[in-house]
């Protein structure tokens, strides 16, 4: 059994309940292969950094899975076939990251840039004092 972190992005036009159904479908596959689900986190409708299939926004979901490789292969195959899927990325991790996903705390790239610009200013001010 390996630990995997999977993030997928779904089309903007579908309601969040349908995103939940998608998550259930994928976690169901993992369960069928005797894997376990540690976390399914819906990170909200985020602004995409660039357009994908004419979508400007996307539903982000992060999943923490414990499964065998064959389960992941099947899950990814189903993901590729899914019509509402824009992107997915599954990575094997040594340990799951604790706490909520940083994706839930930001709405998109532009918003995060504004936040960082403010913190950068603070840093330079600190530097001048020191």
């Amino acid at each position: 059994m390996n630990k995997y972190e999977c993030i997928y992005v779904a089309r903007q036009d579908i309601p969040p309940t349908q995103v939940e159904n998608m998550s259930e479908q994928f976690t169901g596959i993992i369960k069928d292969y005797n894997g376990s689900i540690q976390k399914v986190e819906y990170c909200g409708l985020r602004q995409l950094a660039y357009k994908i299939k004419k979508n400007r926004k996307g539903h982000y979901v992060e999943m923490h899975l414990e499964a065998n490789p064959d389960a992941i292969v099947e899950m990814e195959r189903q993901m590729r076939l899914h019509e509402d899927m824009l992107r997915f990325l599954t990575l094997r991790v040594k340990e799951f990251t604790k706490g909520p996903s940083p994706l839930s705390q930001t709405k998109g790239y532009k918003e995060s840039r504004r936040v960082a610009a403010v913190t950068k200013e603070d840093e330079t001010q600190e530097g001048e004092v020191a």
Partner: protein
Amino acid sequence: MSIPQKPSFFHRKKSCPFSGPRAIAIDYRDPRILQRFVSERGRMVPSRISSVSAKKQRELALAIKRARYLAIMPYVVD
């Protein structure tokens, strides 16, 4: 190290923001951290400017590329 030219100017050697006791974790999901290491146009900043260590720069590059694929970070900003 060289002696500072002006007595009022403190030349402090910058250290890698991902190493040492106050290190930040590199996370491909967090645009707030990653965007500090890309230019206005979305290009990665060379490590000689950002003073990221070679090892961490490799990690960072991978994280930025993953974030770009998931549309968390842009490939180009026009």
